Each structure stands twice: as C-alpha cells, then as structure tokens.
C-alpha cells in the first residue's frame, strides 16, 4: 500500500527531475510526466480498490507533527474515488495534449504535473490553509495551462482568470483567518466541531469561506472570467478544467459544507439553480462549441451545487445523486471538449464534419444524451432520484427549476447534435484524428455506458430494468457494417422471438398490455419487413429502430415508474434518431426532441409528485394518490399528450412524420404514437376515479375534439402526401384522446377500437405512400397522378386504407364510428361529439385528395414506366389488409374480448353480443351481416354493369371530353394543387398556424432573453471583478436577510 503522501513526493520530485533531465529530449520528459500522473493514479486507485475490499479510512500525518502544524491529508472512500477520477482524466488528458505539451517543452509539462498534483491535494487535504495554498497552486497552474495556446485571446483569458481567482483567494484567506481566530484550528473537522455559527462574527468567517468556494465554482452571473477561460483555452485544457478542477473544487465545496452546516442550504440551492437555469438559458444563444461547453459546464456545476444545497432533503441518496451527476458531467464534458479539440471548428455547425466518421458521431451522441440525462447513463438515475426526493420533500418550485434548466440545456445540445447529424449545404471540413486524441474520448464514452449499467442497480427500482435488449442494440451497432438483409433478418427474428416470449403470457394475464404490445411488436416486425426493399447497408438504421422498440417493450414490461420512465426515454431517443434520418428532418428532429424532453420532464415531475409520501415506486401507487391529484394527473397527461401530439403540442409531428423515411413514417405514426395512448390509458385506469381527474378529462375531451378538427383541416390543405397523413394522425389521435376522456365503457371501447384500427390503416397508408414516394421520388401529390395504371396493388391498399379510415361501412372503421356515437350520446358530450363528427366528414376531403391526386387523374410523363411498389412493402401492407378484413368481417372477435377487459374498470354500459349482432343501450349493429350484404350486393351490381358494358373500348388518359379541345400536358390536366380553394376561403382561417406562431414566439423569447443577459459578459476583466464583488455583496445581504 503506497501512502498517498507520495502523490506529493512524486509530483514535486518529478517536477524537479524534469528540470534536471530536460537534456534527454522532449519525448523523454513527456513520458516521464505521463508516468508521474500514472503513478499518482495508481496510488489513488489502489486505495480505491482497498476501500472497496476492506472499507477503512486512513489519515496521514506528515513532517512528524500533528495537525494543524503540518500537511494533513486524508484518504477516504470519497477521496480515493475522486482522486482516481482526477488522475485518470489527467493521464488521458496528458496523452491527448501530448503534441501541445511537447511543443511547449518541459515548462508546460511541469505545470501540468503540478496542476494534477495540486488537485489531488485539494481533494485529500483536511487543512484549511493547506487547501488555500493548493488552490492557489492549481489556479496558477491553470492560468499557465490556459496560456499554452499562446494567442492574444488566451493570454487575456489567463490574465482575467488570475485577477478573478486572486480576488476570490483574498476572500478565502480572510475567511480562513477569521475562522482561525474564532476556532483556533485550521483543521476542517476541527472547524466543523467549533460550531462557528454560534460565535458572534463566526458567521461572517463562514460566509467568506463559503462564498469564495462558491465563486470558485463559477456561479451565475459572476462567472464571465471562467467562460473566457473555457472559450480561449485549448480544448484539451478546457476538458481538464471542466472535468478535473471542477471535480476537485466540488469536493472542496463538499468538505467546506461540513463547516457550514445546513443553515446555508437554501442560499446554496438558490445560487446553484440560478446558475443552472441562467447558464443554460444563455447557452441557447451560443454558437461557439467551446464557449457553449463552458456554459454547459458551469450549468452542471450549478446543478451539483444545488444538489448539495438540497442536502437536507436527499438523505442517504445525496451521495448517489451527486456522484452520478458529477460522474456523467466528468465523463461527458471531458469527452465533448476533447471532441471539440479534434474538430477545431469555431462554429457549432462545423460539427457536421463528424458525419464522415460515424464512430465519432456515435461518441458525440453518447455524450450529448448522457449530459441531458437520458438512460442508460448515470445522470438519468441521478436526476430521477433527485426529482423523486425533491418531490418527496414537496420542493416543487425547486423541482421545476431543475427541469427548466435541463430543458434549456436540451435546446442547445440537441440543436448541436442535429447540426452534426443532418445540417445541409455545408462544405464539410476535413479533420485529422490522432490515436492519442481519440482513445481518451472512446474510453470515456465506454465509461459512461459501464457506469450507467452499474448505477442502475443503486437507484430504487432500478434492478427491475432489463438490460438484455439494450445489449442486443449494442450488438446491432457492432454489426452495423453488414448488409441490410442480415441485419434486417436478425432484427425481425429478435422482435419475433421477443413477441413469442411476451405475448402469450400477456394474453392470459393482462389484456391491456397485450393489445399495446401487439401493436408495438407485431407492427414493428411488419414494418421492418419493408426494410428489405432498401439496398446497401443503411448504416445506423437498425440500432436506432430497435432502440425504439426496446423502449416500447420496456414501457409494456414496466411495473414501476422508474422502469416506465426508463423505457419512455429509450423510446424517445430511438425515435429521435429514426426521425432525424429523414432528408430534411433536422428542424423537425429538434422540435420533436424538445417537445419530448418537455413531455418527459412533465412525466418526471408527475411521477415525482405521485411518489411523494408513498412507500413504493410501483405504477400502482398512482391509484393511491390523494394529494395534488389535479397536478399529477395534469402533468402526466401533458407528458403523454406530447407523444400523442395533441393540439398545442402537435407542431413537431407533421414535419417529423412527413420527412421521415418511407418505412420509418409508419413506425413513428402508426406505432410510436400509441405509446402516448398507452400512457394515458394507464393513467386513467389508475387515477380516473378522482373527481379532479374527471374535470381534467373533460378538458382533455374538448382538446381531443379540437385536435381532431384541426388535424383534419390541416390535412385537407396539404400538398405533401406524407404530411397529409401526418396531420391525419394528429386528428386520429385526437379522436382517441376524446374517446378515452369519455371514461365510460363505450368510450374506452371506442378508443381501443380506434387505436387498433389506426394502427392498421395508418400503417397501410404510410407504408404504401412511402413506397410510392420511393418510386416516384417526390412527396408532392400534384406531381403524381394516374399511378393506378402502374401500381394497382398500391392503389387497392390505399383504397382499403381510406375506406377504413373514413369509417364507411362495411370496413372496420365503422365499428369505431358506431361505438363513438353511442358513447357520445351515452355520456352527453354532444357538442364535442358533433365537432368530432364534423372533423370526420372533413377526413373525406383529404382522403379523396390523397387517393385521387396520387392514383387517379393524369399519369405524368416521367412516371409512365414507373414500377409497382416494392414487394417488400406489399407483404406487410397486405398482411395488415387481411387484418382489417378480419376485423371488419368479424368485429366480435376483437370487440368482445375488449369489452370483457374494459368491464373490469367500467362494469356498466357495455355491449350485448349475439353472434355478430351488437346491441347497445341506443342502437344495434351487425358487422358480419352488413359485410355479407354489401359484398353480395356489390358483386351482383358489378357483374351486371360488366355484362351491360362488356364491349366498352379501353381508352387512354387524354381521351376525355375537353370542351372540344385536347389536353395540353398531363401536368396541366391534373387538377390537384389547392383543390379545396373554396373550402380554404370559407374555413381556411381555422388553420392559420397560431400555435406554431406561439411556439415560435416562445422560442424567440428564450433566445432574446438569453441574448439580453449575455451582454453582461462584456469580456472586460474589471467588469468581471465587479461582478464577483457585487455577487458577494448581494449574496451577503440576501443571506443575512
């Protein structure tokens, strides 16, 4: 066991040795330095291992004196972990900075070594003055590293840094002097025991110590100097500052809090959250990667500071929460800074260059998702626990601030990610990737996954999470270089295997989950079949598609809230990547992600509030909620509504679904949206019995009706076939929301019928239209036309799809309409019902436009030889058509079991079944009988007409009566563009995009606020010092008050 004192000896000794041995060349010096850091790391690491095996603390004295007269170090569990982290990033950072350090020579290496050593001591020391000394050492070393870049900007930044830190150091020193005066000891534990607060004037001493450490953590807004440092330093150094110094300083803060006690918690939490929210808000306005990361680092430190401020509420989970978030920050931020150093772009958009190196893009995505707190990364569990505990302590305001800050962070990080994946019209600069630069990044990314896997076990309920599917996704990622046919087969096989293992037991026990699992999994398998139609490798598709299905499956499997939320976020991540794969999807991917994050945070808040005061994390506790019912129900509903794209939250959907790839649109439309429905169902089952919930459901009913109207009107005026279907999805989800909100037996039967139907016909329509788009190369309906001649199978599919969608008997859509009427009249929601009916008739407008503009009318020149849609699309489409036909011919096969299931929640008001004849309180309906009657009648009439006009001459498309003229061109003869001009004149005002304008203005508001406050960072050192001083004064007065 090597004593930790040797960290100092190695550090100082090597520093001298470097000077002596510089004759051996820079490579030698460099290797020596790295060995030194490695040795320090080894020391800390062996202690870490020791603590995990035996678990003792150790105190080390030096120079033969007892504290406070000598360096007083402690190596405990915390110290070992943090020192290991610092040394690891030091070692990897050293490797990363190899070229820079070598160029600058041994001075730089010396400074580097001292920098790392200093941080080790900061972590280990228990002596306040010692702490001061080594903080100064680290400050000076940092400044030295900052000016490594040796340009005007970095020298200025280093200078500002020195000024600011010396002001802070002065405050700190005064605080220590006062403390020593009052407590007569410099040992931190001694100071803590001295109970300084009780002493008159002691609180000032504590204030000075505390505020200076807080200032070192760069609180908003007194942090301009730090931003300049992040901005100006070479990214390798910024990585160290962000990962290592912040870690060390955070631990110092933790130690100092031992002296301060809990009385300052509110202030600390306030400063921390202000920093978190403010810094992330300003981050939205940044476009320089380094500065952006600087804002993000400061924000994260703010969150961490706040967590310590929440200490009284977090109890034993404090360390878990703080550590997971710190660890994620440490790994991700270092990785991002390092990546920024590799790309060397002054602009966020420059990261588009990453697209050339998919592996690095993957790393980048990993870091971004980890920072935001997506599963399976540690911060996900940390944030979850944080919110749960905050809610448990009824700290709703704080909780809101945490989520708001996270949301702002999401805005810029996902915009950045979106740029790198998808932005167009850019000359992608070349960049060089050295092994010494990429290896550290890779190690840290892997570290995130490993850490995430291991942290899950520590979170309450985390053990339930099934990681095997995620390993499968990772496996797909690894075999991404294989051709489509293999990956597709493996994926389908996996989904099929999973379905076989999960569906039969669900059918026995849990009909509700069986239905949704069926939609998710069978739908998933079917839509994947269409993937065979693609050629090449389709890089990156299968991991993300399966990621989404994994998320959906986890939602189904979830029994507790953490697991549910875990699945929800996994699904969101997968679907985000699926959506952003589309050609022009960048802005839509971003808006999807932002609404999803917002929704997810609403869910998180809702779950947290529901969990408050309850013993269990199980989803069942929702049913026992007795306080804040409206809030919980409302928040959870809003969370789920973002996924169902209800009016107001729908603006992400048309673009996201419209621009997605041909086989992705059905996945995200027919399947993904049902996740929101599933959530709503779960929510209403659990909480529907509360009167408050019923009130909200009434609002949701109106919302659903208006969504249906707006969605259908929106679809009517579309020219883009896929957007039309996307708007139609909005409307259909509006129907479902409406029917669910009715909360009666018939209402829910309607909702489930609609869900199943919508899954089938929307999958058919999106698959078919997507396949047609693949063939004809355009989304614009007016550029198609007459394709029935070339694609009869596609036409039949769309025909069946639109008949089913419009609810015309005898196809299954009518089942939904009939139930709907009965439910509405039964419930008494006549006006909402009338609006929904009205929107149902509007559906005819766009359905006709869809089938007419694409398949009927005039065939265009360039489509004269276009082929039938790919057989790989036809297979799933016709399987679904068979499904619709079975449902239509024998509705009782589906509706009867559904009814029995719903009876367990709403025992009264169901249907009576007599064979195919269903009878409700109001009316009756015989699906099978109608089907038979209509089919026979239709066949008879058709054969009669065929006999009567058997000799008809087949003619071509221009053989039409054209006022005695002949048509000029197919383009001028095909009436399709703005076909509902009259309707637009009458009702077009209803589709003015007020909601999009509202969100746009919100977006502008955030940006302009950020832009306004950004001006406080003038770049002037004096101003920054003034900020620091002013900050101290303001905090002082607030704290005293």
């Amino acid at each position, binding site marked *: 066991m090597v004593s930790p004192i040797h960290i100092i000896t190695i550090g100082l000794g090597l520093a001298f040795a470097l000077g002596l041995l510089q004759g051996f060349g820079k490579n030698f010096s460099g290797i020596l330095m790295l060995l030194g850091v490695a040795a320090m790391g080894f020391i800390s690491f062996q202690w870490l291992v020791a603590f995990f095996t035996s678990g003792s603390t150790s105190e080390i004295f030096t120079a033969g004196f007892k504290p406070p007269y000598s360096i007083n170090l402690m190596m405990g569990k915390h110290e070992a972990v943090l020192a290991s982290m610092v040394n690891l990033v030091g070692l990897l950072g050293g490797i990363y900075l190899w070229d820079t350090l070598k160029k600058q020579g041994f001075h730089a290496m010396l400074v580097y070594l001292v920098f790392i050593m200093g941080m080790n001591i900061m972590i280990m020391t228990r002596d306040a003055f010692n702490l001061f000394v080594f903080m100064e050492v680290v400050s000076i070393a940092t400044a030295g590293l900052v000016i490594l870049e040796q340009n005007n900007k970095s020298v200025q930044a280093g200078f500002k840094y020195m000024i600011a830190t010396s002001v802070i150091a002065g405050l700190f020193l005064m605080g220590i002097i006062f403390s020593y005066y009052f407590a007569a000891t410099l040992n931190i534990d001694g100071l803590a025991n001295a109970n300084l607060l009780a002493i008159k004037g002691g609180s000032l001493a504590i204030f000075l110590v505390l505020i200076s450490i807080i200032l070192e953590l760069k609180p908003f807004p007194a942090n301009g100097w730090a931003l300049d440092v992040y901005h100006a330093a070479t990214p390798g150094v910024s990585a160290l500052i962000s990962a290592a110094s912040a870690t060390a300083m955070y631990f110092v803060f933790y130690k100092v809090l031992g002296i301060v006690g809990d009385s300052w918690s509110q202030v600390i939490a306030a400063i921390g959250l202000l920093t978190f929210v403010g810094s992330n808000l300003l981050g939205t306005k940044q476009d320089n990667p380094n500065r952006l990361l600087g804002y993000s680092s400061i924000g994260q430190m703010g969150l961490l500071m706040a967590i310590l401020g929440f200490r009284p509420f977090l109890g034993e989970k404090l360390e878990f929460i703080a550590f997971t978030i710190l660890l994620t920050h440490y790994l991700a931020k270092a990785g991002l800074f390092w990546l920024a150093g590799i790309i060397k772009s002054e602009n966020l958009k420059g990261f588009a260059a990453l697209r050339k190196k998919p592996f690095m893009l993957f790393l980048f995505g990993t870091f971004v998702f980890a920072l935001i707190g997506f599963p399976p990364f540690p911060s996900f569990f940390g944030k979850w626990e944080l919110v749960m505990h905050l809610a448990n302590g009824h700290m709703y305001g704080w909780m809101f601030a945490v989520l708001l800050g996270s949301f702002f962070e999401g805005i810029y990080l996902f915009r950045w990610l979106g740029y790198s994946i998808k932005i167009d019209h850019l000359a992608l600069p070349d960049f060089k990737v050295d092994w010494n630069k990429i290896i550290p990044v890779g190690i840290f990314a892997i570290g995130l996954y490993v850490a995430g896997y291991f942290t899950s076990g520590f979170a309450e309920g985390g053990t339930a999470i099934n990681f095997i599917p995620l390993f499968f996704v990772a496996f797909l990622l690894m075999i991404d270089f294989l051709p489509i046919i293999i990956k597709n087969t493996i994926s389908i096989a996996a989904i099929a295997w999973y379905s076989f293992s999960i569906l039969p037991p669900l059918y026995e026990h849990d009909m509700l989950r069986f239905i949704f699992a069926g939609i998710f999994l069978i739908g998933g398998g079917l839509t994947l079949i269409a993937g065979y139609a693609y050629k090449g490798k389709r890089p990156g598709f299968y991991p993300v598609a399966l990621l989404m299905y994994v998320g959906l499956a986890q939602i189904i499997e979830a029994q507790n809230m953490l697991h549910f939320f875990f699945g929800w976020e996994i699904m969101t991540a997968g679907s985000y990547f699926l959506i952003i794969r589309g050609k022009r999807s960048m802005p839509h991917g971003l808006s999807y992600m932002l609404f999803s994050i917002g929704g997810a945070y609403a869910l998180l808040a809702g779950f947290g509030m529901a969990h408050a005061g309850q013993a269990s994390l199980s989803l069942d506790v929702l049913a026992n909620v007795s306080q804040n019912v409206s809030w919980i129900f409302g928040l959870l509903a809003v969370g789920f509504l973002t996924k169902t794209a209800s009016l107001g939250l729908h603006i992400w959907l048309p673009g996201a679904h419209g621009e997605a790839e041909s086989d992705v649109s059905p996945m995200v439309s027919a399947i993904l949206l049902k996740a929101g429905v599933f959530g709503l169902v779960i929510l209403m089952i659990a909480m529907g019995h509360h009167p408050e919930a019923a009130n909200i459901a009434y609002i949701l009913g109106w919302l659903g009706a208006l969504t249906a109207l707006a969605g259908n009107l929106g679809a009517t005026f579309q020219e883009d076939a896929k957007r039309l279907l996307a708007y139609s999805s909005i409307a259909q989800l509006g129907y479902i929301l409406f029917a669910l909100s009715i909360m009666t037996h018939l209402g829910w039967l309607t909702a489930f019928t609609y869900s199943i139907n919508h899954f089938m016909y929307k999958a058919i329509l999106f698959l078919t239209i997507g396949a047609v788009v693949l*063939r004809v*190369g355009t989304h614009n309906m007016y550029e198609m036309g007459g394709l029935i001649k070339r694609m009869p199978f596609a036409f039949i599919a769309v025909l069946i799809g639109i008949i089913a969608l419009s609810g015309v008997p005898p196809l299954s859509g009518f089942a939904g309409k009939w139930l709907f009427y009965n439910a509405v009249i039964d419930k008494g929601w006549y006006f909402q019902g009338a609006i929904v009916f009205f929107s149902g008739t509007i559906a005819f407008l766009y359905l006709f436009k869809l089938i007419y503009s694409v398949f009927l009318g005039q065939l265009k020149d360039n489509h004269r*030889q276009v082929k039938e849609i790919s057989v790989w699309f036809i297979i799933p489409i016709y399987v679904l058509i068979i499904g619709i036909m079975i449902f239509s011919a024998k509705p009782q096969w589906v509706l009867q079991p559904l009814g029995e299931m719903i009876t367990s929640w709403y025992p009264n008001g169901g249907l009576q079944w007599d064979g195919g004849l269903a009878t409700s309180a109001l009316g009756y309906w015989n699906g099978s009988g109608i089907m038979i009657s209509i089919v026979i009648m239709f066949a008879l009439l058709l054969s009669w007409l065929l006999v009567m006009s058997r000799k008809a001459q087949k*003619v071509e498309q*221009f053989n039409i*009566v054209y006022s005695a*003229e002949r048509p000029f061109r197919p383009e001028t003869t095909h009436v399709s563009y703005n076909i509902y001009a009259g309707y637009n004149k009458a009702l077009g005002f209803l589709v003015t995009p007020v909601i999009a304008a509202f969100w746009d203005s919100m977006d502008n508001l955030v940006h302009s606020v950020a832009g306004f406050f950004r001006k406080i960072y003038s770049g002037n050192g004096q101003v920054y010092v003034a900020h620091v001083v002013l900050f101290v004064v303001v905090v002082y007065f607030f704290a005293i008050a």
Partner: protein
Amino acid sequence: MTNETNNIVEDKLELEDKFLAPENRKRQVTTPDGTIIEVDPLRDYFSDARPQIYRPNSIPVIENFLNWARAESLWVLGFGTGCGSIELPPLTTPRFDAYRFGVQMRATPRQSNVFIISGYLSVKTLKRVVRSYEQMPNPKYVIALGSCTINGGMYYDSYNTINRLDQYMPVDVYIAGCMPRPEALLAGFNKLKELIKAGKAEKANEYVENFDWYKANQKKIIKDWNMPDYNW
C-alpha cells in the same frame, strides 16, 4: 442499311412535323430512377383504335322499342358553331318548349345523341366539331342548320369556311334557311324522330364505314390535325 432507314424515317418525321404541336412531339423524360425514356404523346396519351361499327339489335321488336326510346329522348349537345346557335336557346323557352318532345340539352358530348351544326363552320371550328362528334356515343345524329352547312351560304367563297358539311360527317337532317326559325328546328326534330323510329338514322355506322373517305376530306383542310385519326 439500318442507318438509311432511320434517315428516311426521320425525313418523313420532318415533313409531318410541320404542323405537329410542340406538346405532341416526342420528348425525352428523365424518370425518378434516372433513366431516360421517350414519350410519344400521340401514341401514349391517346387511344389510336379505329372506330367500330355497332350493329342494331338483331331482334326487330327490341330494336324498334329501343329506337322509340332513342327518338323520344334526344339529348342535344350544347355546341353552337356559327350564328345559328342564337336560335337554340329559344327552344327551351316557354314559347317553343322543345322539352315536350323529349329534347334536352347536355353539356358534354359523352351524354349527347344529337349534334346541331348551327350555321357556318370555319375550319378551326370544324376541327372541334369533328372531335366532339367522334366523342359522342353511337347511335348519334346530326342536324345541319342553315344554308351555310348545305352549300356554304353567304360564305360560299370564303377561304376559311366549309361549303358542304356532308363531306366531313354524315348528316341526318338538313334545315334550310338563313336563318331557320326555331319552329323549323322543331320540325327538324320531328323529322329526325321519324327517321329514328323508322330505323333509318344509322349514320353513325355510315361514318365508320366510310371513315377513310371522311377522314381524308377532313384532313385535306385541317392540316394540323394533331390527334390520332379517331377521337375516342
């Protein structure tokens, strides 16, 4: 050898091309998957099937019955060619009331049986008239109204109006005069009814039988025909 034939074909095309409308020329089009195909509008967009002869029902009783129905239900195409078209609207007014004879106006040739050529026909109009006539379903009847359709009338020496309608399409009933009054038109309708009931109004088949002769006459003056021979 092949080259020569190609050249000949191209030369021939050059000659024909003189009056071929630009939108009817062959054109190269890039399909969505990038291959280039040729579109020949006249072949691809129009049916070039020749007209057929539709024989009357072989059972006289049925045919007589159907002829009676056809005679009592005369649907007139609303296409006024010359100044005589001003005589058509009064037919529907209370004063003349052609409805009582089963005469009704239709807006599309597809649903019409009777074509009233109301007065002089310029070459430009004749082209449209022929198109509309060919688009009417069999059986169809033509009433030629006014002297201009018979012998050119006052436009007998014009460079731009035809003299004799029967050179271009078969005519069932002539109504002479310049202009004939609506009463004369009603008389014409009654005459047409008689012909139909007697089974003598099979001029549509006559047109098909002498199709080449009619077509040659039409094409002699309509030089930019720009369509396949028969308009379905």
